[in-house]
């Protein structure tokens, strides 16, 4: 864990950051039975390192369920992380210090280091900084939610919705409050005539404008935009995106733009982070990531997005479905679905089972029991030897076979499989400012070719 954070945390070392995340985790307990015993954890966000540069837009993309909204909520302080640190307002030097000190065991720190660590945690770490600082952070970091229908209180007037932050944080009231609210409304393209209306009297686009006005009420530096336009029509979306860009230029805002729409993120973001199953799999400048993705997942995302010009490349596709986030795959989390997965990508017993179930359900039915000694070694028992042979021959020639420690052994009606252990994939810098967690890309320096590896991967089951 410490190695992962020390090797892969800083993405924008050369600039100040509004927020820096170190190995942030959000695990939700899964409770079962009458006693509500905790039987596992849903790893919504699992070890994210990220820093958001001041005055820039960072796009966070990923499919539903990958944890991007949870990450946004953690950063805004709406969800407490179960692990890792969130730092606010670090200079470039401080980011380096944090990174170095996180790798050092506290007992081995020099007195100087210890003092530095103490100062850093007291001044800028969310959770251990003073109350006043926390309050300041909350004022400074605002959120615009996806659904403007449910994020505005239907029983409040626009004046109360937009004026609420001002009342709470700046004790404004009366005519002065009205004046400020009108100013804010004008800034987002609404006017004084909208002051005494309820949310239901507005269209979707106008409601999103009210949401933005509320977020801007306290002059924040940093705004988290959680799918701000996905509920809107294209023509209205264009209006809102233009407004957001204008406001950024005017007020020097920093945006975290969370979305699943690649067209929007391509248009808006300076840098993008691609998320898959709770982890960031690729990070880099937007144009470069779109031109030459360094992770198979980003490549698939880019290629499956239909566009208004050019032919869509249909070669890169994911197979299967998103794995269970309670027990994510070992090694690289994408490997069971990856079109270019190879032997070293982290295959384990669970992958054999799920692949057999998907590709050859008949063989899967013949499995009687599975004795796992750990995630990488197991004995699979069948009714008779013929079924066991069938199971082994089904694996023949697939990438799973290559990744095994030794070929599967048939002993009577049972098969012994054992895999090489692979450490979890972590983000590594591949080119200047380009990070990817693909194990094969890290070895080669470029994204692996599809044709060659497809033969290795073998689509014999389909």
């Amino acid at each position, binding site marked *: 864990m410490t190695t992962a954070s020390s090797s892969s945390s800083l993405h924008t070392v050369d600039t100040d950051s509004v927020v820096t995340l170190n190995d942030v985790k959000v695990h939700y307990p899964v409770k079962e039975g009458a006693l509500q015993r905790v039987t596992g954890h849903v790893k919504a966000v699992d070890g994210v390192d990220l820093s958001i540069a001041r005055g820039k837009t960072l796009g966070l993309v990923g499919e539903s369920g990958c944890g991007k909204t949870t990450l946004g909520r953690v950063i805004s302080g709406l969800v407490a992380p179960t692990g890792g640190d969130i730092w606010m307002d670090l200079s470039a030097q401080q980011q380096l210090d944090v990174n170095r000190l996180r790798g050092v065991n506290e007992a081995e720190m020099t007195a100087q280091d210890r003092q530095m660590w103490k100062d850093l945690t007291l001044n800028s770490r969310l959770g251990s900084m003073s109350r006043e600082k926390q309050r300041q952070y909350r004022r400074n970091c605002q959120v615009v939610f996806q659904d403007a229908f449910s994020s505005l209180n239907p029983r409040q007037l626009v004046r109360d919705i937009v004026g609420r932050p001002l009342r709470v944080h700046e004790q404004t009231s009366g005519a002065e409050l009205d004046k400020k609210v009108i100013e804010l409304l004008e800034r987002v393209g609404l006017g004084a005539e909208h002051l005494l209306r309820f949310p239901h009297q507005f269209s979707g686009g106008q409601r999103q404008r009210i949401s933005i006005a509320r977020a801007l009420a306290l002059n924040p530096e940093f705004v988290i935009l959680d799918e701000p336009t996905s509920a809107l029509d*294209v*023509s209205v979306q*264009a209006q809102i995106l233009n407004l957001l*860009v204008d406001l950024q230029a005017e007020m020097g805002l920093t945006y975290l733009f969370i979305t699943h729409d690649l067209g929007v993120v391509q*248009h808006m973001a300076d840098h993008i982070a691609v998320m898959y199953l709770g982890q960031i799999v690729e990070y880099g400048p937007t144009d470069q990531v779109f031109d030459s993705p360094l992770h198979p997942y980003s490549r698939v995302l880019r290629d499956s997005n239909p566009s208004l010009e050019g032919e869509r490349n249909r070669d890169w596709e994911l197979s299967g*479905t998103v794995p269970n986030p309670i027990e994510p795959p070992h090694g690289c989390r994408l490997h069971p679905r990856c079109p270019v997965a190879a032997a070293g990508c982290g295959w384990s017993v669970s992958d054999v089972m799920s692949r057999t179930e998907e590709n050859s359900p008949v063989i899967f039915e013949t499995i009687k029991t599975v004795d796992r000694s750990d995630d990488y070694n197991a004995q699979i028992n069948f009714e008779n030897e013929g079924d066991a042979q069938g199971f082994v021959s089904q694996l023949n020639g697939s990438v799973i076979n290559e990744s095994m420690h030794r070929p599967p052994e048939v002993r009577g009606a049972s098969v012994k499989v054992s895999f090489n252990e692979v450490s979890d994939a972590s983000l590594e810098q591949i080119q200047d400012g380009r990070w990817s967690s693909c194990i094969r890309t890290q070895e080669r320096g470029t994204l692996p070719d599809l044709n060659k590896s497809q033969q290795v991967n073998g689509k014999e089951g389909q």
Partner: protein
Amino acid sequence: MSQDWLLKVDNLSVRFQSRGGDAHAVEGVSFEIQRGETLALVGETGCGKSVTARSILRLVPEPPGKYVAGSIKLNVEGKGVVDILSASTKEVMAIRGERISMIFQDPGKALNPSLTIGSQLAEVFGQHRVEMILESAGIEPARASRAEKRIAKQRASFVQLRFFQLTRRSKAAALQKSIDDAVARSLADTGIPNPRKIMKSYPHELSGGMKQRVMIAQALACDPDLLIADEPTTALDVTIQARILELIQDMQKRRGMAVLYITHDLSIVREFADRIAVMYAGHIVETGPAQEVLANPQHPYTNGLLGAIPHRRTPRGQLAAIPGSVPQLIDPPEQCHFASRCQWAAEACLGHVPQLHTIQPNRKVACFRFEEAESLSVAKTDMPIPAEISGEARR
């Protein structure tokens, strides 16, 4: 007159009664769908595209909905033309699912959460394919007993079913197997791995993409002539979206059915549709071959819609947004509905409703910029600047 069209919607108008007056959801919409063709009905929220699609299956609730005018004619092979709007309920029931079927936007809401996938799909066969099920169970349909028919139709009560299972064990098993086989075959057709397992699961146990596949299997179970896909991929992720659309395209090629896409996503249209009809405020404003319309849009609204799509080449913050918002549908004035948002709007646009006007073979646009002042009997000075129809691509 050749009758190679499959569906012909003629001057369809649908209104909804509301407290403030009648909402004109669909006004004078006409289009045709040929056999095997893919038509996309494109427009933004509230433009009437879903109401049009639902009218084809007569699914608009009456009241508050009302079919004010028009006809929807379906050309049934070997049976002649049926007007869906004036047909009896029984006739319409026979068409739904059999000739025309529909898949909905949110598969999570469209599937019944309290039934297994297998029993939901069996309902389709029970409704339309009773004879097939009886036959493959080795029962002659003409000589089937009432109980057997009821079981095949999925209408048997629990007691009746148990009684039958206990007294006629082999026949009950054969019937059940025949139903299960039919369901499994239709599921396997849509590329669902391990259909027997999926049949036993409930909708909440499946992912969104899988649910949409089940919906497609259900819609295509009876080999319809027309599939209406109402925003089939809006609720899905991009990686799955492409696969679902490819699946629909694949099924269409194999069965030669026509597809009507209802969507707001123009990029999908370009790849998957033959023809496109752009709707705005209840009217069709532009129609033509998909590639041509998207490359060279003529109506100001289509143009605006295309310009509003974020693109990496447009400089940040300079998207060509259409100003204003969609006009009120309740008792709209007699004018071009896009006039309030249109840069070309002139005096003539405020006095008349533009009709679809053929500008090229296969292409029609409802805009006064393509019409002569004489034909409208207004002064030349009141007309908007005429458009230059260029054949070449916009970019």
